[in-house]
């Protein structure tokens, strides 16, 4: 064992900058995936067969293939097919957002279907239109039930975000590799960013717990 963390000290600012680089796309991908996932979940419970089908096929594709393949496809195929030179940042958001939407849509669909059917009937009997009913009555109850599952998905996305290092996006993971190559020491930078990932996840989980506690309206 010859660990020597002093070797990476000069690189610490460089690595720390990676926190924001990672967070920047993770946050956007989470929001994008969440919004798209919500829409897809509404497709899945819709009485419109075509929308159902879209929701099902979408989920099947994005859950049925490796995330790294989706990332590569978006990063390499888009320039090849369209001539548009997509940046790693945008490709990462697209890949992670589209992928996350598939998982989120399943979580929300299950959450909506777990809300007592009587809630829908009560709203209908009061003359509440479908949109308002979903927004004000059904989704708030669904979200309360699925918050742990959603947080879990966000945690997974944050950790898996390290995959973007493979397309040259200078995130935390990639920076650890760069430092490793520079100093011929891989262990220390990897341990260091590992610690940072762990801290980020801890913060995310704690935030989730706080939201969860706030939402415990009824019990």
């Amino acid at each position, binding site marked *: 064992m010859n660990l020597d963390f002093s070797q990476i000290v000069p690189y610490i600012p460089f690595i720390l900058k990676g926190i924001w680089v990672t967070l920047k796309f993770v946050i956007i991908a989470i929001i994008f995936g969440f919004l798209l996932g919500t829409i897809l979940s509404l497709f899945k419970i819709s009485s419109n067969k075509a929308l159902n089908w879209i929701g099902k096929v979408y989920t099947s594709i994005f859950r049925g293939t490796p995330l790294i393949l989706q990332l590569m496809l978006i990063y390499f195929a888009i320039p090849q097919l369209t001539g548009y030179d997509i940046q790693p940042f945008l490709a990462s958001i697209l890949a992670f957002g589209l992928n996350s939407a598939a998982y989120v849509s399943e979580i929300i669909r299950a959450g909506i279907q777990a809300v007592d059917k*009587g*809630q829908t009937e009560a709203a209908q009997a*009061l003359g*509440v239109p479908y949109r308002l009913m979903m927004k004000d009555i059904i989704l708030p*109850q669904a979200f309360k039930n699925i918050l742990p599952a959603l947080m879990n998905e966000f945690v997974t996305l944050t950790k898996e975000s390290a995959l973007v290092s493979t397309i040259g996006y200078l995130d935390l993971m990639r920076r650890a590799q760069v430092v490793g190559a520079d100093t011929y020491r891989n262990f220390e930078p990897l341990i260091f960013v590992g610690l940072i990932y762990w801290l980020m996840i801890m913060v995310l989980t704690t935030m989730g717990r706080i939201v969860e506690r706030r939402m415990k309206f009824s019990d």
Partner: protein
Amino acid sequence: MIKVENLYKQFGENEVLKNISTHIDSGEVVSIIGPSGSGKSTFLRCLNMLETPSQGKVWVNNQEITDKKTNIMKVREQIGMVFQHFYLFPHLTVLENLTYAPMKVKGESRESAEKKARELLAKVGLSEKETAYPNNLSGGQKQRVAIARALAMEPKLMLFDEPTSALDPEMVKEVLNVMKDLAQSGMTMAIVTHEMGFAREVSDRIMFLDEGKLLEEGSPNEFFNNPRTTRAKDFLEKVL
């Protein structure tokens, strides 16, 4: 107020309502009784189109609600419904449960909606519960809130589907009392119930459903004292 003509309802092969024709007049209180599974709930739910009839027509206030062109949401604003299992909105306070639909559906101001909600809560004896969440209420309290929620829309007609069947015995009375007051205030009411004493006392008319057919219809005295069909006689012998 309500007219029903040759109403049929099928669930797949199962014919649940068979050729029902009847009417409910303005201000009338009608109790619908019959064995479990006879189609009482389904019949009631056809009156506000929570179930779509397979055949036949239903009019509410001279408007044919079975007509596809009718905006059923508008009609439902005039029909309050109370369910066996309350179905209060658990993420809203009692007051919000009462103000939600008047504000969002009828566009009332918060001020007037809350004022009316407080009056209704006072009427059902739950003024002190306005900031409580439904899950912190007893069954009887929940059902009284549910009645107040429906009344907050100022409906012309109230439908009740076994409003006391899910309640502990000691809470049945508080709910029935609220319904009695409502009946005396002149509200048009259709009530599915197993509370025979209550039905006899408040109803202008009894409807007896059996296997999807409206077998008997008449005043409480006629029905309870001299049921015409053997099915009704058998039923009454079991429940009285």
